[in-house]
């Protein structure tokens, strides 16, 4: 028994009705009355909503009026209101960790229907808490200073927006992008739904601002290698891939590209999805930030033979920006928070061979069409087939790699809308007849339904049906036939088209699992990163100080991406601006005199909080997350955990079983 209870604790028990959430299934009055008769209980009450102001006030007043030294609230789940009632307990003048919460909603009223049994269970659970609280100890939350700098990983629109928001608030930002330029997918679009404003016009100014912002250090061709430390004090190691160009020296004149010994490009241009070829020295796209070229080691003659004339070096002359000797380098920086904004990848339609992608040359992905309709794309905005003809009929197949148990169960949210956008743009540029094959048109959100109506009025055809097969039209016409069951007409349609556009879905990045591990966050369904709470903590993760923005958390359009990036920046700002964090005291600690130094615990900690100091184990309280692994494993019982001391747990078990 804890010393300051003088042998007998004075416990206050509060049983919440939660409206009818609890009270309809648990006889709360009977429970309170029962608790009142248990040893150590000084007051026992029920209240309609314990979490309301008057409910909290009740706790505070009772502590003062009855010298309570322990408080138990039986209500919803600790993950919802433990913090609330700890505050109320502290407001009454006693240590907040003398409070204990019992879930009689999630663990009782919500999962049972029999009032008698549910009431008995509530009594058992409360009895367990009464047994336990007398062993509670006063605990303090430790304060740790927070480094004000923030790292943003991924330079798509999400990362760009988050970085600018933070930098404009005066915070130092490191923006890490693995490609040679920032911009992400948005940089590849011509127009954006639903407003059809030009992507470059709205994106380029933001990219330039990133490049020039005094508070932003932009690292392209870089990836995060390792994250050490903890909330407020992360040490991040960044790996820089060699660009073979000295960024500071290059002025972006692109003369080197001009004079490169390759007269024409021979390497598929990544930015244009291989629709054209680029040289070994290139700039990903005209508006790239930074405005610095890059040399592709695999294509460059100098790397392959060591005997190139190096016309590029000649023309670069005194600028002297080309450096074939660059190698991978590393930087380690300290930041208080990290925003992960690594985006998505599009579904590879080769995984559903029935659509004929990669087999019939005129089957395209939506991303390829984005480049074809783009004025600065490989065809300068002319939508032409691979043989140069302009298509007269185009079929757009929705939900490729989405809403399909064989590929991805989820809806990619943007494909319907970008299909409409592409229908509009292709029709505008070619006058072709456009057929959209869809399962459902999903047009929620501001301006989306209106956009759908507009495109429909433009004369685009909509066929409700899943395309079952794509095959060449008889007679060598170069066209393919799209076959689908039209579920509105109830018959099979076979439509020959010149061009097929596959609206491929959004998937988690191929390396999402690796990235997840690096940042110690979790992946949910489909490999997208998991938010801490789908409604109440949508940009937080289970690791404090690591936030999510954009499509790495799940498919979404640009407006939602930007909104989320703003939210992630605000959360990061709230953390670093405060200057310190308070650590939950539910940590494990080694009782040094008892530790035999057997080393069992050391490799087990998932947060590497345990080290060996003078032959004994030592747990860094700031790193410990209270997972309890080491506590369970220490064979001599020398590791204890605050709030989960053996006595507390054994007493809880004895309490819950006391009537069994």
């Amino acid at each position, binding site marked *: 028994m804890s010393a300051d209870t003088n042998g007998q604790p004075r416990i206050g028990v509060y049983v919440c009705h939660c409206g009818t959430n609890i009270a309809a299934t648990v006889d709360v009055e009977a429970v309170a009355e029962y608790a009142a008769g248990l040893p150590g209980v000084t007051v026992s009450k029920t209240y309609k909503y314990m979490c309301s102001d008057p409910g909290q006030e009740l706790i505070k007043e009772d502590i003062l009026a009855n010298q309570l030294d322990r408080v138990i609230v039986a209500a919803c789940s600790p993950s919802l209101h433990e913090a609330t009632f700890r505050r109320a307990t502290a407001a009454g003048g006693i240590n907040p960790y003398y409070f204990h919460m019992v879930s009689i909603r999630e663990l009782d009223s919500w999962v049972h229907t029999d009032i008698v049994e549910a009431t008995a269970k509530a009594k058992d659970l409360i009895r367990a808490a009464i047994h336990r609280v007398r062993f509670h100890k006063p605990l303090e939350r430790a304060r740790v200073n927070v480094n004000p700098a923030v790292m943003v990983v991924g330079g798509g629109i999400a990362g760009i927006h988050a970085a600018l928001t933070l930098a404009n608030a005066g915070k130092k930002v490191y923006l890490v992008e693995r490609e040679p330029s920032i911009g992400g997918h948005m940089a590849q679009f011509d127009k954006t739904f639903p407003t059809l404003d030009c992507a470059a016009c709205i994106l380029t100014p933001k990219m330039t601002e990133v490049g020039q912002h005094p508070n932003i250090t932009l690292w392209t061709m870089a990836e995060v290698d390792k994250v050490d430390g903890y909330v407020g004090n992360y040490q991040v190691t960044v790996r820089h891939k060699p660009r073979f160009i000295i960024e500071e020296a290059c002025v972006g004149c692109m003369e080197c590209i001009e004079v490169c010994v390759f007269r024409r490009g021979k390497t598929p241009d990544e930015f244009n999805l291989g629709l054209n070829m680029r040289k070994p020295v290139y700039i990903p796209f005209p508006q790239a930030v930074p405005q610095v070229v890059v040399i592709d080691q695999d294509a460059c003659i100098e790397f392959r033979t060591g005997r190139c004339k190096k016309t590029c070096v000649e023309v670069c002359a005194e600028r002297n920006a080309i450096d074939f000797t660059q190698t991978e380098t590393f930087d380690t920086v300290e930041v208080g928070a990290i925003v992960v904004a690594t985006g998505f990848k599009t579904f590879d339609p080769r995984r559903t061979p029935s659509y004929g992608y990669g087999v019939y040359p005129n089957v395209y992905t939506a991303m390829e069409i984005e480049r074809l309709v783009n004025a600065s794309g490989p065809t300068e905005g002319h939508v032409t087939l691979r043989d140069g003809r302009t298509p007269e009929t185009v079929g757009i197949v929705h939900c490729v790699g989405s809403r399909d148990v064989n590929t991805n169960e989820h809806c990619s949210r943007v494909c319907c809308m970008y299909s409409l956008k592409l229908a509009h743009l292709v029709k505008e540029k070619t006058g072709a007849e456009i057929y959209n094959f869809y399962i459902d048109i999903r047009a929620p959100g501001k301006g989306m339904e209106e956009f759908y109506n507009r495109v429909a009025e433009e004369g685009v055809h909509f066929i409700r049906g899943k395309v079952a097969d794509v095959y060449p039209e008889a007679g060598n016409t170069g066209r393919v036939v799209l076959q689908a069951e039209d579920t509105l007409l109830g018959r099979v349609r076979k439509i020959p088209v010149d061009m097929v556009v596959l609206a491929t879905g959004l998937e988690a990045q191929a390396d999402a699992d690796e990235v997840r591990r690096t940042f110690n966050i979790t992946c949910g369904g489909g490999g997208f990163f998991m938010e801490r709470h789908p409604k109440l903590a949508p940009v937080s993760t289970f690791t404090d100080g690591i936030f999510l923005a954009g499509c790495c958390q799940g498919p979404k359009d640009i407006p939602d991406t930007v909104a989320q990036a703003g939210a992630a920046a605000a959360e990061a700002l709230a953390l670093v601006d405060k200057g310190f964090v308070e650590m939950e005291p539910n940590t494990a600690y080694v009782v040094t005199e008892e530790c035999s130094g*057997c*080393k069992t615990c050391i490799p087990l900690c998932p947060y590497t909080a345990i080290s060996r100091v003078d032959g004994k184990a030592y747990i860094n309280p700031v790193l410990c997350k209270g997972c309890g692994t080491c506590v369970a494993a220490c*064979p001599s*019982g020398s590791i204890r955990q605050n709030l989960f001391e*053996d006595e507390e747990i054994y007493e809880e078990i004895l309490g819950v079983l006391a009537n069994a």
Partner: protein
Amino acid sequence: MPDKPKVAFYWCASCGGCEEAVVDLAEKILDVVAAVDIVFWPVALDFKKSDVEAMEDGSILASFVNGAIRTTEQEEMALLLRRKSKVLVAFGSCAHLGGIPALANLWDREAIFDTAYRTTASTVNPEGTLPQVSLAHNGDRVHLPGFYNTVRALDQVTEVDYYIPGCAPTPNIIAGAVETLLGGDLPPAGTVLTPDIALCEDCPRLDTKPQELTIERFRRPHEVIADEGTCLLAQGLLCMGPATRSGCGHLCINGNMPCTGCFGPTSKVRDQGAKYLSAIASMLGFEDEAAIDRALDGIPDPVGTFYRYGLAGSLLRRRKMTPVDA
């Protein structure tokens, strides 16, 4: 010599090793004998139960009881000595934790009798006679002690003041304990009279125990010739050292044998076997079940390994049996 403190020794369900251990004190026993007045020691001295009954309650300074409680008679003697003594000491692993006899808690009386009196190859018992509590013999009624279904440690029968662990306790531990008890400056009741830290702490092989230890297969001592300088656990031998109180002087380790856990857990551990199982589980660094099974193939008798001495006093206590006979 009426002023010398009185002490008593008694044995319950035990192998006799603990009695040997007292004799093993060698010349030190003479110091003990000189310092105290032994009023009861059935193994060595001819006193009767009635002599003890005649003593005043609390008149014995300390009774050292070894062995677990298996029969009604043992229980009766434990209670009697408790009443007559200021200090009751559980001596050795069986009194302390239940010991080897408590491994019989995997069976019940019926099964034990069946094996011992009927089915073993060496049994000759054509009438199938089993032990009786009361029987007619030559016209008299003979009474024999009852045999409980469950073996208990001494403190599961009566209150115990101190524990001297070990199977058997080593001379140093015994001498130290006696000195402590005679010294008058008594530790808090319930103390186990050895250091409260695990054996690894001053094990001569600790430095060779790797920080990241992954065990691919446990081995039994007869399967390997263990290196004499290297941590036995690191060699796949299930050394109980990390989960066992020190104080033995590493007798087993020095003999190149793994610790079997006879000193019991430290004071912070309620169930030595469960605790060590959980530690051992963390050393099996495999993902797939087959590999884990392979590693564990080297532990054919988990209860006899992890609970060799501690089954009675553990949270498990015994294999489930209803009702647990009192």
